[in-house]
């Protein structure tokens, strides 16, 4: 348990650029988005001392991250000419021709020193055509932190190419079906490190992260009726939030993590409401008799709210001001059933699910409903959730096979779909945590 906690707690690493080359930031490398993928080699690292498997694990994790990103084509290691794990006298003391000959334009290589369970890892990004190093980082960490080191360098590579924060190393929480129950689980966003959080033998669902990336708010039947609870993902301690006789579902933390926006169905009415963290009702935001208002989602900056309502017939997506005023329908995609909105952290798009093509598909549009695009078309796809940098969407999908849902991610434009989990009983309803600091 202590070991687990240690792994889960904030990774302490010294990170600094240690090569002082004036030409570092000067490069012609261009990222071409979802068009042509940038061919890159990620070979086994050089092991300078010790006997750690990190020399293989780090490039594997890195390669997977770069593949998921949708910007890179990681070249097949079987095609590499250079001897795996080759060491040289200096970071650029290798033959670039070994890499240009197999079509690599980029190359990540590095050196690992293992000393008494501690790792010192140097990683370099090379521009193969210009035959020079364009990015270098050094990391110190415990030998169990090889994955984190790989994710951190993947984020550096993404920042180098796109100028934006990467999302590697962030967490995705989701509901997983175990027998007839639904429990919460969490994994890294590359699909690894999955672990079950709850063992309630009930229904644990609709989770959403607190701003520090440690606590999840969710709906649980652990007291046999649906109420909101919070769980600390590190020690798994659970705190009850609401004690109503109605249904509270779809909660999301508000500004500073001090309030909860949720849907409450009680008696004849279904409202969007604000609770404080003790479950006391602060404010009722909607009040249309007889309808369903559900799945409220803050805009970045907490000025507006997107939600799902059947006030105009079937469920559709609406936006309103944080006060509850100025309600506007924004989904107009020829579907009588649209649910589960998600507001991009970049503020410009809202993703949602609609019944279309005989199944359920994910769409996104501008926040006023214009420029609606269908992002998925194979099987059933539901519950989109933006990555913290607004570049990707996590979602539940049948991936075109049967009826069992699993978690996948894709780029914001629907390209580069990757299946992350492979449960035979089902995983659904992803919640993407913040970027680790």
């Amino acid at each position: 348990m202590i070991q687990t906690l240690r792994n889960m707690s904030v990774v302490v690493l010294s990170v600094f650029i240690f090569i002082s080359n004036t030409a570092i930031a000067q490069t012609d490398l261009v990222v071409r988005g979802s068009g042509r993928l940038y061919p890159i080699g990620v070979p086994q690292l050089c092991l300078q001392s010790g006997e750690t498997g990190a020399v293989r694990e780090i490039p594997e994790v890195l390669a997977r991250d770069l593949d998921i990103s949708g910007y890179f084509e990681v070249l097949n290691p079987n095609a590499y000419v250079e001897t795996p794990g080759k060491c040289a006298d200096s970071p650029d003391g290798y033959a670039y021709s070994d890499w240009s000959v197999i079509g690599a334009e980029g190359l990540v290589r590095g050196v690992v020193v293992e000393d008494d369970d501690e790792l010192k890892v140097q990683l370099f990004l090379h521009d193969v055509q210009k035959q020079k190093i364009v990015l270098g980082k050094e990391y110190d960490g415990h030998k169990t932190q090889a994955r984190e080191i790989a994710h951190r360098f993947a984020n550096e590579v993404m920042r180098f190419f796109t100028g934006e924060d990467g999302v590697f190393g962030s967490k995705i929480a989701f509901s997983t079906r175990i027998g007839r129950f639904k429990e919460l689980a969490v994994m890294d966003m590359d699909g690894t490190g999955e672990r079950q959080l709850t063992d309630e033998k009930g229904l644990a669902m609709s989770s959403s992260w607190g701003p520090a990336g440690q606590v999840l708010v969710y709906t649980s039947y652990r007291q046999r009726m649906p109420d909101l609870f919070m769980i600390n993902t590190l020690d798994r301690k659970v705190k009850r939030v609401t004690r109503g006789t109605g249904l509270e579902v779809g909660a999301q933390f508000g500004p500073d993590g001090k309030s909860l926006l949720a849907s409450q169905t009680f008696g004849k009415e279904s409202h969007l409401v604000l609770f404080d963290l003790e479950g006391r009702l602060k404010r009722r935001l909607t009040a249309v008799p007889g309808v369903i208002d559900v799945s409220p989602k803050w805009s970045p900056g907490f000025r507006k709210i997107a939600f799902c309502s059947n006030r105009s017939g079937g469920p559709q997506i609406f936006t309103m001001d944080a006060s509850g005023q100025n309600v506007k329908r924004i989904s107009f995609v020829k579907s009588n059933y649209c649910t589960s909105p998600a507001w991009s952290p970049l503020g410009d798009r809202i993703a949602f699910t609609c019944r279309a093509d005989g199944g359920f598909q994910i769409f996104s549009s501008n926040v006023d409903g214009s420029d609606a695009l269908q992002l998925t078309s194979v099987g059933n796809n539901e519950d989109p959730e933006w990555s913290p940098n607004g570049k990707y969407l996590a979602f539940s999908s049948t991936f075109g096979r049967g009826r069992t849902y699993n978690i996948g991610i894709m780029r914001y434009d629907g390209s580069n779909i990757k299946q992350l989990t492979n449960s035979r009983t089902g995983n659904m309803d992803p919640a993407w945590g913040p970027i680790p600091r």
Partner: protein
Amino acid sequence: MRLTRLLRVAGRVVLLAGILMLVAACSCRTKRGVANIPMAEEGSILKDVYFAFDSYDIDTTNRSILQSNAMWLKENTESRFVVEGHCDERGTPEYNMALGQKRAQAVYDYLRGLGIGASRMSTVSYGEELPLDPRHNEVAWSKNRRAHFRIER
């Protein structure tokens, strides 16, 4: 004589030990947590009512089922029950939670109108989570879009 008494005492000790073990086993089970949600079950004495996709309307078929359920409830005034709202698997789990609650509430309201006391009834939604028929076709879906009566006593 003394032997008989000894045997009787021994018998009692064994019985007591047995009971203790049973109690221990039960409390152990509780500690680990028995299920917090019920098994899906089909209506028997009180019949289930069924709904159209994405609907919580009490139509004429539902009304006659609920009227005969109400007759039984009026003859069995001691019974308390939960109205469970359920949905088919299609659509988003979160929306279906709210939809199931609406279905349970619609049934609750209709029974109130027929004179069934509020103190005897409560509602709960299980959304799409407790299908009666686990298959993935229209026959299963139409069975799963239901309100079910779980008699508590």
